[in-house]
């Protein structure tokens, strides 16, 4: 097998990093090398959302992203949300509404909810369902997830107004 690896530089949760990366490596496996396990491969087909991360501020499925292609870009994972020690309003709302059971899909839902509320700070239930339709929860905490998104939206609006 030829050596198809290459040195890449990118920004990871705000910090510049470098890595030697094989051409076939995907972004989830690259993040594992940085001990970041919040994005995780489950279905391996971009359908469950467990591997959601942001690349240049846009949500992508890490399992469908070639690691070499994040060269020069900015990658943000769920671990960035509480870097200051405090939970994000979305994370807190997920806890308060009990919006998970096993927790394996939760980082993906949390990341997608942040993206939804960035685009649409006041989503109705239909908009929540449409936006989160690409994330699967086998424990089926969907009713609680919808409530968590609504709670987070309300709190974020209130905080904004204050």
């Amino acid at each position, binding site marked *: 097998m030829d050596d198809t690896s290459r040195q890449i530089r990118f920004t990871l949760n705000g910090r510049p990093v470098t890595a030697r990366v094989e051409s076939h490596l995907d972004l989830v496996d690259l993040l594992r090398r940085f001990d970041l396990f919040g994005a995780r491969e489950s279905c391996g087909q971009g359908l469950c959302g467990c591997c959601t991360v942001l690349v240049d501020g846009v949500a992508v499925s890490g399992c469908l992203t070639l690691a070499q292609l994040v060269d020069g870009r900015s990658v943000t994972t769920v671990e960035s949300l509480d870097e200051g020690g405090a939970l994000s309003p979305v994370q807190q709302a997920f806890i308060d509404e009990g919006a998970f059971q096993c927790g*394996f899909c939760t980082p993906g839902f949390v990341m997608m909810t942040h993206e939804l509320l960035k685009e649409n700070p006041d989503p109705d239930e239909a908009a929540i369902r449409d936006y989160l339709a690409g994330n699967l929860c086998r424990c089926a*905490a*969907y009713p609680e997830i919808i409530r968590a998104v609504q709670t987070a939206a309300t709190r974020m609006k209130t905080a904004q107004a204050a």
Partner: protein
Amino acid sequence: MNVMRPMPAGQVGRSVPRLEAREKVTGRADYVHNLVVPGMLYTKVFRSTVPHGRIVSIDTSAAEAVEGVYRVVTGEDIRKVVPEPYYGPAFHDQPVLALDKVRHVGEPVAVVLAEDPYVAAEAVQLITAEYEELEPVFDEVEAVTSRAVVHEVLKPAGTFPDLKHLVGRRDTNVALDYQLRRGDVDAAFAAADRVFEHEFRTQQTMHTPLEPMVSLAIPGHESLTIHTASQSPSFVRIEIARLLGWPENRVRVVVPHLGGGFGAKLYIKLEALVACLALLVRRPVKLSLTMEEQFYTISKHASTFRIRSSVKDGKITGRRCEVFWNGGAYADIGPRVTQKSGFTAPGPYDIDNVSIDSYALYTNRPPAGALRGFGIPQLVWAYESHTDLIARELEIDPVEFRRNNILREGREQATGTAMKDAAIEAVLEDIVARMDWSKPFDRGTGPLRRGRGIAIGFKASISPTTSVAIVNVYGDGSSSLYLSTVDMGQGSDTAMAQIVGETLGIETENVKVIHPDTDVTPYDMATLGSRSTFHMGNAVKLAAQHARDQLDALARSLGLPPGTNYGPKDLFKKKYGMQAGNIVGVGSYIPDYKSPDPATGLSDNVTPFWMIGGTGVEIEVDTETGHVRILRMVNAVDCGRPLNPKIVETQLSGAALMQLGFTLFENMEYDNGQVTNASFADYKIPGIHDLPARIENDIVEAEQKSGPYGAKGVGESATFGVSPAIANAIHDAVGVRLTEMPLTPEAVFRAIRAQKG
């Protein structure tokens, strides 16, 4: 005497947020999925491509030649570590890697070990095998008489007391036949006004936990540590020790959080393989399945249920049940599913004459085991569809017909065990009231027709099984709970901590729960069948009481008068002169049980408690396309007194929605034994758009007097009624009856067409 701080009000019954909530929302919770250890080899499995065949040869040379491959291992290599490498909870029928024969497509035949998982995956594609194909059998009813025999000899395991009666036989696919005979069914049929007979079928489905199965074994000096996503660490230890001929204490099994289980991660799954590999190559070995590979590993039984009932004066007088369970190629826990579900096959009705035959069959499909309900959802699907059909034929309101026949408190259920703390009526009446059953119902217009349906079911617990717990109170008064119950999302850590908090009079949030580690945490049979709240809950309560009693004794020994407001911290300080010492409380619990009489299947004590669940739905059928939309779903259960109402509610909607997927569309499809839709692209599970427009979950007022603080299990109860409630509602809406799951739009459409002629 109360030596504690004033007790924080009501730890039990409080909706404490999950103790591990913060780790989960931040992505920092530990799963085996995350685990990497130095020197670790990754494993990729080469799998059988034929459903039934003798292995003629396996060629691993090309794979071995791939740069970076550490070793390729076949079944014969495994014998070097374990001469008799067969495992299983009911039968020792499953080889670690195939030997001589393969029995289903996807069966592990060889493995590649490499430091780079991509290399292992690449190399495994270069392995080839030659098989002499044998006639396969796939259908559970055909398996009874088929010439194709999956296992030539049956080898009972004898591990569990409730499966002691299994016997070894030759040349049959019947792994277990459970029989129950009560009263005289033939006489009841002869004397009846009407006799009704139907056949119902369910399809094979898969748990698809989002964390696919994963195990990692690390060899030590005459010891072995297995980190595994397992629901049954104690069983894994015992079974691995048995395979290796070691004492239990040389095998350590560690289980962090599980990314879902639902029964998929029970007994032995990947553990025997990684254990053998680690000992063979003397390095840590990790095996992570892909989503696809899970479909070849374990599934939910497909089933056929023939049910025949006699009715006289509106009362069911006799019922004959014949249930065929498609167990796939290896028994796994199928025999227990067959027997335990057999107990309640006639449903929650008071019937004097009952005959039950429940058969566990081997076939050449991937193995079937436990999946959220242990067979009960398949049974309720049949008997509650049947109940509705009878009511319709007799022109009696289906709710009224159920009321006339319902099994009331104190009455003997089919097995001869009396119903106790079983709020069957309350569950039915709760749903009826919620749905305003007696009020007129909007039946829709044009192509959209509406209907509603109700179904109730019940389940006996898995018995007799043991749980042991340890509560350790430290020198500063803080405490930890050591137990081998696995929190796979059901919230057991939190609920068990609540029991400790309630018993010791401390805040739940201050109890640390030590996750299963068989070097540290005591025995528990397994986390399955909604048994933990009751069994482990009782053990935890006993352990906490034991600790409390010792604290009381310590206070007395220190000469403190009763009523002194001394906390544990002060007691330790007074006793040891500094922050030091421990109080260790131990609790062990096993309920009483009486094995069913082998001849009649009867016993006056088959279960320590009953789980009750029911569902009502209002639906809309698009008569032009067959699409069914769930407008409203009402789930109700008797779970005794809920320890944590919010977590219970999440369990109810989660269970009901999972069963909704099994009801409407989930289905493992086959082409000559090959699953053709083994991925989320083609095996669809419910997403957020599949959530009913309205979903309500009710916990009925009840108490399980023998349970910890009145509680009992609940993880499965809300699955029971979902499938038949929907089928009954479809019948109500458009007048057609589906008897085979899943209830796809095409099936509904075809039934409507057939009805129109």
